């Protein structure tokens, strides 16, 4: 799983229109390529963290409040779930980071199958 974080949005706000358009193109192109090659199992972009609600246990009951649980810059902004080895996942993440200069996290997904 490759994860993008909310801080990227803030980091792009001061970039030029050409840079922003270039980033959109890179993301769309990469997403299409990964889907066409069959490497991508799932990918989603999440709505802005300002649209999030957090359910907390307060006064003995779950209470929903406005806003994300984590700091906006640490909040999940989108992800790719890929069926690839770690080297390939790191290579894909590097392609994006080379352009955005903003970090991404790569982490294995747990295996559900029962081990013999």
């Amino acid at each position, binding site marked *: 799983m490759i994860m993008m974080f909310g801080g990227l949005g803030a980091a792009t*706000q001061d970039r030029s229109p050409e840079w922003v*358009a270039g980033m*959109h193109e890179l993301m*769309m192109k990469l997403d299409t390529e990964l889907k066409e090659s069959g490497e991508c199992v799932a990918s989603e*972009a999440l709505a*802005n963290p*300002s*649209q999030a609600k957090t359910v907390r246990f307060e006064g003995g009951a779950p209470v929903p409040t406005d806003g994300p649980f984590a700091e906006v810059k640490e909040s999940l902004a989108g992800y790719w779930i890929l069926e690839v080895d770690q080297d390939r996942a790191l290579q894909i993440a590097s392609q994006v980071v080379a352009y955005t200069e903003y970090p991404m996290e790569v982490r294995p997904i747990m295996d559900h199958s029962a081990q013999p």
Partner: protein
Amino acid sequence: MTRPRPVEDLLREFAPQVLGALVRRHGQFDACEDAVQEALLAAALRWPTEGVPDRPRAWLLTVAGRALVDAWRADSARRRREAITALDPADQPGAADDSTYGDRLDPGDADRDDTLGLLFLCCHPALSPPSQLALTLRAVGGLTTAEIAAGFLVPEATIAKRISRAKQRIRDAGARFELPAQPLPRGRLAVVMQVLYLMFNEGYTTSSGPALQRPDLTAEAIRLTRLLHRLLPDEAEVAGLLALMLLTDARRAARADATGRIVPLAEQQRELWDAAAIAEGQAILASTLGTGPIGQYQVQAAIAALHDEAPDARATDWPQILALYGVLTTVAPGPIVTLSRAVAVAHVHGPRAALDLLATLDSDERMTHTHRLEAVRAHLLEQTGDIVAARESYLQAAKMTANLPEQRYLELRAARLRQPARPPR
């Protein structure tokens, strides 16, 4: 949902007629609906290789009738007794060319009333809008659960559950399939039109997901509205709704560029608009206006027609559009109407007058969860030359939308204002 082949077109035309006839005869909407799905599946498997039977509707009714009996047999003893009473052996569908049902089902009033009755049942007020949509697509539209799931980009199991819950709710509410009363109950017809309009909008501007539009849903909404218009040719608002859909959908090809980026109305290549759809929408509207009470769909269609008629953006008859929004504000007031009216005000009286109108929406709770107010404000602020405030509004709107192409469009508009193109006035 892929483009239906001729057999599928035929099946989808018959689906509501067969289901309507079956429910009218036996009641039990949910059991009949399952039986019709089985019959449609059997036909989809056999007709393409064996050929379409001479009496396709009678064939479907016979197969669905058998499936219904099978389901009843498998059910409880009480149900079995009911089945035996309901289906007298002399009345049992026999061979596939059995004419028992077919003879009773002469094309005409029976089909008309059955399909209307089904639409009214699927759009029952006890159901939530997503359930009304899913049930209408399946029972009246004849789509499979998988096709509906693809249209809404949700797992098939979700739609299957939504449909079975909807059927359960119809049963719990004690709603019965009945031939529509005369005169038609206005409130129920309004809900049917609302469901079709929602289906169209869900396809035209998807509320979430990677694509800007899902043409299959809009095509299905237009097909079903055409059907409703054919059943109720004298209902001016139904005609207005059909005209509105045609006049809006006509611009589909020009709404996004090759990379999927949104192109606003003023910048669209008008030669990409569908001239045939525009002509049809205009003709429907022309023969409808003045024949019945004016309503929101006719007025919105008239506004869409004015946009479609303009050879280029500058030739748009904005004073006339503003006058029509005035009418719309009296027949169907609401914050989204005010928002659209503000755009017309900007063209006629300038952006500052429009911003004043928008300010009246700031305290409207219905607008707190949509990005549209901020997006319109951003465009207006940009027109006044207040680049800093416009940029803030674009960024705020980009944060609020859940549609990816819209978000990218708004981010790009904000980025363009990073360095003022012209000094603020």
